[in-house]
């Protein structure tokens, strides 16, 4: 019974997110601009350097998975802002008085953010094709890559909700979000192989869930080297479970 209530709330939260998107699509489009610039400008310039060992892959193709993930994870990392806003208004209070458990609110919102991320990626994906990025034409691989994108975005949205439940105000939340996003991106294999990094940064990249997501998506979409993909999925699943649990537990704090 309680599980039913919770599942219902999760689905309702996903539907809410989809309805919001349908009413205002501008955000999805404007957020696509930055990753497209990464590919078209940064990617094009850096591909002339030819010093980055990409394993024979063109540089734009090499960074496409990273840029795709970065653009969706940006959305997720700031998803907590929605929660902060809902806390300032009475929406959260009202949701907490509904029959579902509190974890359903957290997980439902995180999944909803994951769905939003997939929609976001679907807009960048064709642009990347137009820029000449060669994807492996295997529907199962593409599907698995999008699944990874969905899972990692949901995890980062839960992380964001966790931060929101501690920070509580917009200003403090923005501070943490900004501080988090750059290291997340640069201390990963999104733009260059980990082997190029100094040892300290390598150890950060090793615990950075984004590294595993990029590795899997790159393997599935670009290089076709899928040997590590199961391990990458395992790492991201562990991250998701941990962060969902932590965010659900700390969510109580947000209304107090």
């Amino acid at each position: 019974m309680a599980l039913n209530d919770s599942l219902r709330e999760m689905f309702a939260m996903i539907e809410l997110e989809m309805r919001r998107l349908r009413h205002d699509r501008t955000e999805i489009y404007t957020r696509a601009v930055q990753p497209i610039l990464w590919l078209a400008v940064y990617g094009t310039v850096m591909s002339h350097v030819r010093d980055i060992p990409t394993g024979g892959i063109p540089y734009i193709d090499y960074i496409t998975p990273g840029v795709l993930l970065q653009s969706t994870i940006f959305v997720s990392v700031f998803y907590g802002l929605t929660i902060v806003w809902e806390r300032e208004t009475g929406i959260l209070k009202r949701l907490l008085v509904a029959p579902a458990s509190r974890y359903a609110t957290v997980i439902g919102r995180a999944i909803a953010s994951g769905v939003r991320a997939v929609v976001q990626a679907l807009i960048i994906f064709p642009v990347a094709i137009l820029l000449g990025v060669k994807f492996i034409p295997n529907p199962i691989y593409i599907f698995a890559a999008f699944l990874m994108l969905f899972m990692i975005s949901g995890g980062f949205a839960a992380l964001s909700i966790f931060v929101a439940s501690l920070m509580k105000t917009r200003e403090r939340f923005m501070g943490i979000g900004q501080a988090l996003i750059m290291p997340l991106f640069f201390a990963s294999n999104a733009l260059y192989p980990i082997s190029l990094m100094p040892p300290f940064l390598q150890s950060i990249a090793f615990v950075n869930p984004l590294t595993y997501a990029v590795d899997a998506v790159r393997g599935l979409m670009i290089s076709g080297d899928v040997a590590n993909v199961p391990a990458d999925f395992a790492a991201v699943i562990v991250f998701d479970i941990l962060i969902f649990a932590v965010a659900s537990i700390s969510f109580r704090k947000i209304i107090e």
Partner: protein
Amino acid sequence: MESALELAIEIKQLTKVYDGKVNALDGVDLTVKAAGIFALLGPNGSGKTTLMRVLTTQFRPTAGVARAFGYDVVKDDAKVRKIIGYVPQEMSVWTDITGFENLLIYAKIYGVPSSRRTKSIWEALQSMGMDDVANGPVKKYSGGMIRRLEIACALLIKPRILFLDEPTLGLDPSARKAVWQNLETFKREFGTTVFFNTHYMDEADQYSDEVAIINQGRIVKSGTASELKCSLRSEIITFALADRGNDSRNPSKSMADPGLKLKLLEKIKALDLIDDASLQASNLDVVVEDGDVALPAIIEVLRCEGIRLERIRVTKPTLDDVFLKYAGMRHPKKQERNAA
């Protein structure tokens, strides 16, 4: 068992301490009858909102028991949540979707079966007079419309108790009236108990069946509005004294004369049944327990003094007076404690 059925809410010695310091609720005892409209009055920071948030299972109380239709708000919180509707003080709808969609999301959260869903949503919208505008985006609604939409969301599941935290705060008089008229109709139809917080005394007076006043985390007075007003036992009689300056027989005698003023007040205060008297400009205010009895005696005194009257007005106490008496004064002891 029978008494549990009649009572919508039963609260015993409820205490809530924030951060181990502030006693937001300090031993609340309260009962609310089923199918009535109950108003909780209190100054800002008196614990009204905290009490409502404990009753709606958002907070656990530090000590004490609270039950909604027999369900404990801590132990049976899941059951409580299924029978209550709640509208917080702050705006609580999503503004980037339509009014209808807001209710749709709540209908899904509450598991209204899909066969009845659309019908229930339109019924709730109609009961708040929101059916015409339901397909417009909420960000274009006025404050009164948003509040009615919020109440419609809460009415969707036909709750047994509807909790409203300052339901008409910031609304204009016609929007307030619309909210209350719709609520009364709904209540009559479904027998819902309405529990609301307010500091609009007129609203409590006009729409509630029972009132309680909370101050410093304790219920200081409860009963029907008219019981509370009668309990004050104080009516104010205002005498507008005729201007003595126009009196040709005695032109020097005027109310501006402080000696005369004092003498008059002393004489009136000396009468039985008089609680207090004061004189400002040409208005004499006398506070009495029972105006019908005291009035002839006061007139007699004024006549002896040769003062003529222009008008007499008897003011019965309002709920404002009740509120000021029970919640207006801060307990000096507590203030000291807070200062220290």
